[in-house]
């Protein structure tokens, strides 16, 4: 596969390490009353869609960026790639 790195252009997916669903960015609040349930769902339950999937790839043999790749799990087509850091900020993560 080829991942269109937002900064570096097309790079072989072999340079990357895969982690999983990009929802892992949405780490729950540890002080919430439902923290135990929230962390269980965060840690263990997956949508696992047959189709478009936002997922985390680490450019291990490249610039060490985590990327959010939007990829179809049936066809492997990739429609969008973004720096995970930007995505995380956009989803309200900070310090």
């Amino acid at each position: 596969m080829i991942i269109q790195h937002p900064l570096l252009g097309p790079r072989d997916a072999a340079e990357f390490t895969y982690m999983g669903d990009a929802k892992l960015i949405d780490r729950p609040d540890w002080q919430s009353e439902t923290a135990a349930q929230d962390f269980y769902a965060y840690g263990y339950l997956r949508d696992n869609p047959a189709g478009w999937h936002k997922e985390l790839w680490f450019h291990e043999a490249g610039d060490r960026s985590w990327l959010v790749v939007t990829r179809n799990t049936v066809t492997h087509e990739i429609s969008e790639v973004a720096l995970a850091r930007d995505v995380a900020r956009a989803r309200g993560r900070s310090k």
Partner: protein
Amino acid sequence: MTQRNRLASGGQINRDETLKFMFDGKSYQGHAGDTLASALLANGVRLMGRSFKYHRPRGVLTAGSEEPNALVELRGGSRQEPNTRATTAELYHGLLAKSQNRLGSLRFDLLSINDRLSNFLTAGFYYKTFMWPAAFWEKLYEPVIRHAAGLGSLSLKDDPDVYDKGFLHCDLLIIGAGPAGLAAALTAGRAGADVIIADEDFRMGGRLNSETFALGDNSGADWAAATVAELQSLSNVRVMPRTTIIGAFDHGIYGAVERISDHLKTPQEGKPRQILWRIYTRQTILAGGATERPIAFENNDRPGIMLASALRTYANRFAVAADRRVAIFTNNDDGHRTASDLHAKGVKISAVVDVRADAPRSLDYEVLHGEVIDTKGRLGLTFAEVRLADGSTRTLECGALGLSGGWNPNVHLTCHQRGRPTWNDDLAAFVPGSDLPAGMTVAGAANGDMSTTGALQGGRNAALSVLDLDNAPLDLPAAEDAPVVIKPFWYVEGCSRAWLDQQNDVTVKDVKLSHQEGFRSVEHLKRYTTLGMATDQGKTSNMGGLAIMAELAGKSIPEVGTTIFRPPYTPTAIGAFGGRHRGQEFHPTRLTPSHKWATEQGAEFVEVGNWLRAQWFPRAGEKTWRESVDREVLATRASVGVCDVTTLGKVDVQGTDAADFLNKIYCNGFAKLAVGKTRYGLMLREDGIAMDDGTAARLAEDHFVVTTTTANALPVYRHMEFVRQCLFPDMDVQLISTTEAWAQYAVAGPNSRRVLEKIVDQDISNDAFPFMACANITVCGGLRARLFRISFSGELAYEIAVPTEYGDALMRRIMQAGAEFDITPYGTEALGVMRIEKGHAAGNELNGTTTAQNLGMGRMVSKKKDSIGSTLSEREGLNRDDDLRQVGIKPVNPEKAVPAGAHLMAMGGPVDAAHDQGYVTSACYSPNLGHAIALGFLKNGSERMGERMRLVSPLTNVETEVEIVSAHFIDPEGERLRA
């Protein structure tokens, strides 16, 4: 030897170059430009192999890579290559080949008895029998079956050749160098595009080399040669003959195998046998041509029966008549071309048998309306029996019979990403479907354009379109443009032992039986009968099977569907996929900065991941490794030792939020760590299980150096970047892995300070540099260095680091400085002994299933802050009262060992899984205590100090009585550390 079937003239062989070769111990001659198959045919050899199951005599069916029958063991010795297609093996001087899959000689194969038993050996017969008595399967039936099965043999010697891997980038990859591919390449090449054109054949041109018709004023072969020459002259075009595109992978990545040395007796020195190329391309034109298919009738598998197009190839390209008397059986006009070409070369055409009433007539030979219904000839065809349309029969004398059942476009690569071909009624064949791999266009015969003109135009137009060119289109030479005229015809009515898959011996009868037994989906058929599972992946057999299935099910062929074509396009040497990654080069080797020095000391080395670390340093007179390790341990604890610990991961953590960041990744607190101090840190995974441990040294307010275990350096760094970029993107923190930037040595033992005082440029007295201190320092009069007062051994100890390039010099200097204290270098074994004596957890304890609780560090998990893993670590299953706890274990009888991997059972209780109490993780002999010691996990272990237990290892026949003790065998109060 004469080449009795070599035609007097013509062909693209070099008659001036005569090559000698051996087949089954007999010597023959051929010419440069021959394949093994063409050379054997030239010498009148039709019998080349035996079929898989019935051991039927077999000759060539094809003249290309789709060959199912003529498989040989090529070369000898360690280069023996089983299952090599004689049809693609280039002849070279001294070629050696043997026939295979036979018991006895090729002519008298004892296993041909199977053919007599064929009635018992029908499709799937083995599922119904060989079950009684049950024990006989492994002992009797299976060994017999295994020895009879298989095709060729491996030498079982290490492959002496090397294989390269490589990477190519282009705008346009053209697969196939027939008329379509060449026209596409010329168009794109002249327009300046970055083009790669690859063809599996050693001579580019595809069918142009096998046909007699002209392109403009030239022969097809000459036009191809001229075009290839022009392409080779263009710097933007890479011309790759002998290169098979084996697979179309995601996003325009193609696998290709280039055969560099297979046409040579042995590869040139330093050169690979083959190269596996990974080709990255934006666009692809598949111009892979088409494959002719046979027709099924009784005994249609005898040597001498082959595809009509193959007869033509042998005659036109190789100047070989497969036999001097040839018949043709066809359902389409193309079959007649073979007859006219062969006739023109003086071959006697016994007759052309055509299933069509309106077949073209010829003045030169007889055309019969009818069907071939049977053949004769034990080891080679002698007669073909024909049933004419009026019901009468005729016997044709012939040594070769050409079959033409129509052509299948080579759609394989279009299906590698699960695209499905679609049916074309005009061609009676599948053509590429609409769901092609992204960026792929198909042209020429592969796309169903079967005429030469159609192929040339298709190739040119495809190139213009994919490159979006509007320059003047290439002038194409005038060429034949005959339409496809075909009457679908798959098998002769009433036939039974009529071969569909010649290699696997699947007949029409088998397909019918399979249907009768309910194996009616195309995948069931394939799996039940093995149709299409031969080394040609069904290139010559699938269509016949589908057609029969369709008829039996009352469906059309497209309704029956196809099986899925899988990479590789043709079978590919496993060595090519392995490349240079074998032997010592399987994985990279990482050497520590003191490696050269350690080698000089005669160290034994051990693989730790990719690192090689000194395991121990034997001295003269030491007979066992234990003697060396015991000495190293005792000397270190008594005076001073030195050990290379460079392999521990090191991550530079800088930024104003560095301390907050460490608070997130470690379960214990770091915010309050003073500058100049080091702290032990335990890192959890988000699921609350211990991930790694190490130290973090605060070199400045905004600068930490974090260490990881050797094994986890990379995953921990990745995890830290995840936390930084994805979870806390607004923290001001920067991470750099610096594992290899610093040579780091542990100097341990009561005299370690006295050694280092001679090296370090500053005061390192206990007051100035107490336990857990860290600092940027200089050594040896000014070399920048780092010093950490940390200890894995439990002794007064330091870790000292200098830039890697000075590591060798520093080790020598430490040894020099320590000489007066008899400093002892120690390896990983002594390191392990000392850490077990001290009760430190390491990889065997941090095994991915243990919690801080299990490790006895439950209280370290701060509840006052949010850190990775803290919430999920509180789950009930991870906080049970009877949880495993790390304990120390010692044998009751000090002579006994306490082996790692043994399990703990209660005294007097049963020994079984239900009563398992725990297990030993790490074990060693403690020279300080004079007996074996171990660390382990025991249920509720912290409450069981002093308990005696049974330690059992039935696997290694060990049973020992042990006592549960504290894991801190040495200096439990830690006084030595602080000395």
